[in-house]
């Protein structure tokens, strides 16, 4: 056992290591001769080429089985998420605060909205069609050019006072800001049975005696017209734009932080998932100072 107990000195170890790196007696480098290294490398190279091939083949087969228009499953997308513009996030969720009298605090927010609505300019939607029907726009076949389906136009001007066209400041300057609410796209999703889904914004912690939140919705009634649904996917509707609803908050108290929630009211949209704060609703903090 003595041999095992012996602590090797550093130089001994170095020597052993050197001997391992290059053994002049057998011509071995790192435990193998050059030709052995070539052989083993060739083997590994071949093995990995084959494995890469197998992997590629699997992925290729997988892609072949996929439907190009509809995903196979939508387990997570039972109910659409809802997002808000302008979107400024604080430590916990959306947190928007600005000072009415200091335009530097809100010019960024306004800029976000302008940027967002740039996608809804007439130029960007010239491939979409005008829809007037208040019913679901079902399309069985691909009648649009390039074997696609038609998308309905949603123009920024439909948001009227909150379109940024009439009021480039979106009401931020007078303390009655516009917020744009967008519902996430889900392929083949029908939000409700017959009525158009609508947006409803309220104070989250509404006291009984406090005044309820007064909101002006654009388009009027704050609904997403049914003709924007169902969505047929990126490949079928390459020009699709989400419909929007703008909410102009009229009576936000000054100098206090308020919690506001905007829910989508529709038969198939749920907003009570405890884990997901953005499912079917959007909550945000608002603090308008003066």
């Amino acid at each position, binding site marked *: *056992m003595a041999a*095992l107990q012996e602590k090797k000195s550093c130089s001994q170890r170095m020597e052993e290591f050197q001997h391992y790196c290059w053994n002049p007696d057998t011509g071995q480098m790192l435990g193998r001769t050059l030709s052995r290294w070539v052989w083993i490398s060739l083997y590994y190279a071949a093995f990995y080429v084959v494995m890469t091939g197998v992997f590629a083949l699997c992925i290729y087969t997988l892609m072949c089985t996929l439907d190009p228009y509809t*995903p196979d499953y939508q*387990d997570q997308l039972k109910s659409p998420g809802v*997002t808000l513009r302008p*979107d400024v996030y604080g430590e916990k969720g959306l947190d928007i605060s600005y000072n009415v009298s200091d335009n530097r605090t809100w010019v960024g927010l306004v800029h976000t909205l302008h940027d967002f609505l740039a996608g809804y300019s007439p130029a960007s939607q010239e491939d979409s069609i005008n829809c007037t029907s208040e019913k679901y726009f079902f399309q069985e076949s691909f009648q649009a050019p390039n074997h696609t389906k038609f998308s309905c136009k949603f123009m920024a001007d439909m948001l009227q006072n909150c379109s940024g066209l009439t009021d480039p400041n979106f009401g931020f300057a007078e303390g009655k800001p516009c917020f744009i609410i967008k519902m*996430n796209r889900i392929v083949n999703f029908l939000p409700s049975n017959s009525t158009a889904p609508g947006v409803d914004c309220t104070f989250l912690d509404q006291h009984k005696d406090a005044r309820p939140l007064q909101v002006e919705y654009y388009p009027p009634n704050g609904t997403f017209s049914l003709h924007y649904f169902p969505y047929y*996917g*990126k490949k079928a*509707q390459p020009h699709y734009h989400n419909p929007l609803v703008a909410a102009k908050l009229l009576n936000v108290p000054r100098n206090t932080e308020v919690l506001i929630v905007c829910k989508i009211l529709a038969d198939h949209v749920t907003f009570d998932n405890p884990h997901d704060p953005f499912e079917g609703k959007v909550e945000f903090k608002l603090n308008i100072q003066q």
Partner: protein
Amino acid sequence: MKHIEQTDKGNGKEKYRGLKNCFEPKKNHRKEELKKELDLDDHKLSIKELEKKYGTNIITGLSSAQAAELLARNGPNALTPPKETPEIIKFFKQMVGGFSILLWIGAILCWIAYGIQYSMNTSSSLDNVYLGCVLALVIILTGIFAYYQEAKSTNIMATFNKMIPQQALVIRDSEKKTIPAEQLVVGDIVEIRGGDQIPADIRLLSVQGCKVDNSSLTGESEPQPRSSEFTHDSPLETKNIGFYSTTCLEGTATGMVINTGDRTIIGQIASLASGVGNEKTPIAIEIQHFVHIVAGVAVSIGILFFITAVSLKYQVLDSIIFLIGIIVANVPEGLLATVTVTLSLTAKRMAKKNCLVKNLEAVETLGSTSIICSDKTGTLTQNRMTVAHLWFDNQIFIADTSEDNSNQVFDQSSGTWASLSKIITLCNRAEFRPGQESVPIMKRVVAGDASETALLKFSEVILGDVMEIRKRNHKVAEIPFNSTNKFQLSIHKTDDPNDKRFLMVMKGAPERILEKCSTIMVNGQEQPLDKNTAEAFHTAYMELGGQGERVLGFCHLYLPADEFPETYTFDVDTMNFPTSNLCFVGLLSMIDPPRSTVPDAVTKCRSAGIKVIMVTGDHPITAKAIAKSVGIISANSETVEDIAKRLHIAVEQVNKRDAKAAVVTGMELKDMSPEQLDELLTNYPEIVFARTSPQQKLIIVEGCQMQNAVVAVTGDGVNDSPALKKADIGIAMGITGSDAAKNAADMILLDDNFASIVTGVEEGRLIFDNLKKTIAYTLTKNIAELCPFLIYITVGLPLPIGTITILFIDLGTDIIPSIALAYEKAESDIMNRKPRHKKKDRLVNEQLAMYSYLHIGLMQAVGAFVVYFTVYAQEGFKPSALINIRVEWENSNVNDLEDSYGQQWTWYQRKYLEWMGYTAFFVGIMVQQIADLIIRKTRRNSIFQQGLFRNKVIWVGIASQIIIALILSYGLGSVTALSFTMLRPQYWFVAVPFAILIWVYDEVRKLFIRLYPGSWWDKNMYY
């Protein structure tokens, strides 16, 4: 007084020199000192000299004042327990050993990561804290498990303490006092009675029929008579010393205390036993080696990717999280616990085969044993005298010496046998204890000495009811055996009613018996004893004696009826009857025969490349004879002495290279230098050490270990405990072994049978092979767990598998299957190969690591990724969309992330999909681990050769994997903290083709290994 003290001091210095050295830091030096024969010379001194030396008086004893002074100076008469490592330190050692340190780093990194997150954002998620806690919990649980296992291995000092006598009768101030034995001091006069334990080492001053049981010290099982005379140079052999902790069986004695506490012989052995370092077991070394490999891989990959991540402009926080993932993926958390369980399963299996394993790691050590130093008596032999040969009618007959003795086939038709059997039956004082009619003859308890017992049983087997025969041949006179006469004689009336003659029967040392004879019986006829027959007798005597057997001669005489009428009164003192001109009948020789299973076991050891060395205190001739009969010295090999005898030349002239065997006595060993011993051990494949002392056993063991051999040692006495401790594996005898030996040993042989060691070796080798399989199985999935992190960092996919999920594989689904591999049967005859080389045949070698990591592991990773991509693609994210999506994917502020179909996902929806991905990846690994488990059943043979269903536990393992996975997915799928989700049933089968591919690939590997042994393939692919 002053003078006395001075001599005392001087003497003390001289005498305890060895002991003082004990406290010197140089351990080797200390061992050397202790290994020397004990130097004690008090037994040589006269009583006057003793009185002077110890300043005492044998009539009045010490004065109380003197005693108190000596007690203060020398300390109490008790063995000091060795300094123990505090339990808490042992516990913490378990917490930082092995992989624990890596996991601690992981856990601490988790908390650091949380700290950084917290400092940036006070509401950051607690995930990292939980993960850190889980890791810490894993470490603590495995630590507790390991600590519990270690705590089981017992403390050697415990029994030494138990042996301390409680009270002692001492003469002090001219009065007899009973004091606690702890207070005895050197120079005290103590009295001992039968039944007492001897309270210290004492020099006996006056003795009345005192016998002591020294078995716990020297291994001699027979009571040793004591006297006050100095009889031998060695303190262990001389009769005028009584040893601490031995028992006085009968008689009384008065003695002077010459050594107390740790300075007693037993104290020195105790300190020797605990002083001999516990060497690391081979398996511990292997596991350490394995831990180093895995830790090396983990740390180097971790650091490499940490640097890569930082240089890829990842935040330090993210890089730390990657590092944690890499560490956790690399460390097989459950493996060390699995190894422990595997070892204890084997230990249980060995216990069934009469090998009780105390130290779990010893299970494997036994398998790598390359030298067994075995005791003779009781281990190789049956530990009872048995008649082996008979000589009558000028012929040697062989008696059956097997355990049941049932088959005595020698020719019993001769008239000589009739006479001989009569002498054997009648000239014998041994008797069966009553009430044993139902017990087989060989197992009955007999009152009488060993040879008489042997003769009694021998005749009982052949002739039937011996007691009845003795009754019919009424005994009228008897002279029992004594050492001056060297014969035993009795006179009987015969059972023949027509024959009124008395029959005198005699047995004894053959040469003495022959002297008394003038005739010899041949074929039932008395013939004059001429030179030729006397020569025949001598040849037979020498032959039997040369086989190490104890030979007895038998003769008889029918006393003439006219001289000795029925009424004649025999007087054994005046010997009023003839004791010469008798008729010699025959010789009978006895031996403690080898156990019948031993020769087979020795042959097995031979073919397994294990050298068996016999170490015994017995006479060289006997030792050699037994060694020959069990095959330790094979039939055609010769010692130097044999060659010298055959060629009629001097021993010195013989070329030592010609001899294969060697019989070395303790005296010769004493004069050998370590180099000579080394030479002896290397040059002779067959060695017998005879007449060795306990200390020499230690030297022999060390000599063997110098040659890098893994040494197993058997032993039973206290004296063996240092050698048992020193050995790589100490084997104590369960039946005859003393407690101290059992304590020092790693293993206890419940049936004292050498053959059980061999079955143990077989189990030990099997466990090594199976551990290899277990480790290969466990390491494989590490790559499949590691790749996700590497891909995640470099390609930016959503994380394929979470850290917690990895822990569920390592500590959940994989545990039972890896234990199941311990139940795997051997692939081929593992007893036909050499013991593994301690330094070359590693548990985890390059081939094993390469094959597990780079072949099967990689295939698993590919398979699991296919499952992962399938899930994502079918839910909307095609593989192309996933590349470099990581930053947006993980940003909780992005709640409208678009997939390949234009659908938009909130953060939580993505998170849930990510968990589904974890589950899918987990299932992918699990399914392929089933294939991995099946291929690991064999390393060389095809699975179909081994049998797919022979090891049922494997199927239990597979079932457990599937059930645990099902529970995690469908049962706990709703518990978000575990990040498991329900999974569509078809995803469970996506990895199945890869599982089959793994199986096929491994079958091909094994096929080529079998087809082209020694080829490039064999060298690179066989692990």
